[in-house]
């Protein structure tokens, strides 16, 4: 089973289309909506975790591209500024999916981008403003 977390930027003329329904019905993909926002007169942003057959997944992406929907991998949208992070660990306690881990001896905080669901909790909580989110 293939699985990927992606960010879709949906043009304003597409916002009222049942995209997720199509992904599920036509491509037999399991979906988990992690975040959905509509910015008036601009676009919709949808963060999805998709699971299914790799062929179907690729076909689904082609469908989305054909509809002029911008697709980005979620992992690139949440980043940590290494110059600002002091490895305190406040993010560890707030993250709902355990995307931060404490390295045992060094007590360094490791950010596991692949686990991140871009909820933004760490961005708000980090006192050093080391976490950034760009959806």
């Amino acid at each position, binding site marked *: 089973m293939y699985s990927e977390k992606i960010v879709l930027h949906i043009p304003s003329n597409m916002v009222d289309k049942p995209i997720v329904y199509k992904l599920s019905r036509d491509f037999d993909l399991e979906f988990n909506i992690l975040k959905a926002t509509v910015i008036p007169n601009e676009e919709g942003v949808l963060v999805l975790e998709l699971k299914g057959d790799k062929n179907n997944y690729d076909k689904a992406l082609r469908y989305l591209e054909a509809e002029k929907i911008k697709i980005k991998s979620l992992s690139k949208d949440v980043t940590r500024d290494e110059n600002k992070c*002091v*490895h*305190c*660990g*406040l*993010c*560890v*306690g*707030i993250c709902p999916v355990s995307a931060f881990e*404490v390295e045992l001896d*060094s*007590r*360094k*905080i490791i950010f596991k981008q692949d686990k991140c669901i871009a909820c933004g909790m760490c961005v*708000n*909580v980090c*006192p*050093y*403003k080391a976490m950034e989110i760009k959806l």
Partner: protein
Amino acid sequence: MGKTIAEINEKIKKGEAVVVTAEEMIDIVKEKGSETAAQDVDVVTTGTFGPMCSSGAYLNLGHTSPKFKFGGGRTTLNGIEVYTGLAAVDIYLGATALSEDDPKNKVYPGKFKYGGGHVIQDLVEGKDIELEATSYGTDCYPGKRLNNIINLNDINEAVLFNPRNLYQNYNVAVNLSDKVIYTYMGTLKPNLGNANYCSAGQLSPLLNDPYYRTIGIGTKIFLGGGVGFVSWWGTQHNPGVKRADNGTPLTPSGTAAVIGDLKRMSGEWLKGVSFLGYGATLSVGIGVPIPILDEDMAKFTGVSDEDISTSIVDYSKAYPEGISESVGRATYAELKSGKIIIKDKEVITAGISSYYKAKEIAEELKTWIKKGDFFLTEPVAQFPDAESGYKFKPMKMRKLKGGE
């Protein structure tokens, strides 16, 4: 056989001093025993890095022509209010100061993106700072309005002077309510959703000298990347609390006031921070060297996270209402394991103080001493100790005569 600080300094001068971090000392004492450890080791370095709200800097801005009296007027640096109730061109910039137009918690939870701590970091990093001031004008100081750009290099004294740092042990904060709360101990999720702690534990300076035998007024320290001194005991110093057999206090206890030349510090060790829904402050890096004068000091500095425990406090009710009540205890080893059990529930733990940076500080100070760049000092006077009866009191509430 004991050692004196003078003897240790002689060894440092000759490059013969044995210097280890408080973390390394744990294994040395375990393996060799405290008696041998005391003979072998001369200095143990400690470190801590975390938000310390009672911090700030006083600056002497230099005189303008025509002269301007900041004292008694109103002054801001990058929009942040500073205290002007001093002589004409002396000001005090506090770490938690905010700008007048910061929405604070009117838009809850407030973000507090820029405050006094951030100005201190910008100053220390050599950035230009916008100064705006108004005053009332006098015959000798006629200026009434001033806009200028200042820089750390151009002003006279810039001195970091923190009335309370180095808390000897600190609470673990939890939230027993059913709503998210935003505190100086971080964002606390409802129903024991997380537990935040804030101490370097086994590396923390005052936990390695629990009875303030070597740390006192005049102790030379690593402060914000430069050299500083302990100037007094800190505000809220509370040495009389209950202690474990190893001397470490079971609840927040001793504190220290520190001072040092801001011009020789660095943004790496002084960082402006923002606590969601609470405010802005400054994270400070401090390292204190502890001379191993005798076996007792070896024992004290050999303390490990397993042997230091603290009290878990509910920040939704007990803390804000000033009720001294605990919902349990945990050792720093348990806190650092990532989860603790509170009221039969497994709760995820998170640090506010950076152990990673604390370790870097202890290592850095070790290097300074080994290279012969840093010598130890004898305290000029001791802190009020555990037997002194010195206490941290709550505010006494009284009504004005004839008032409600």
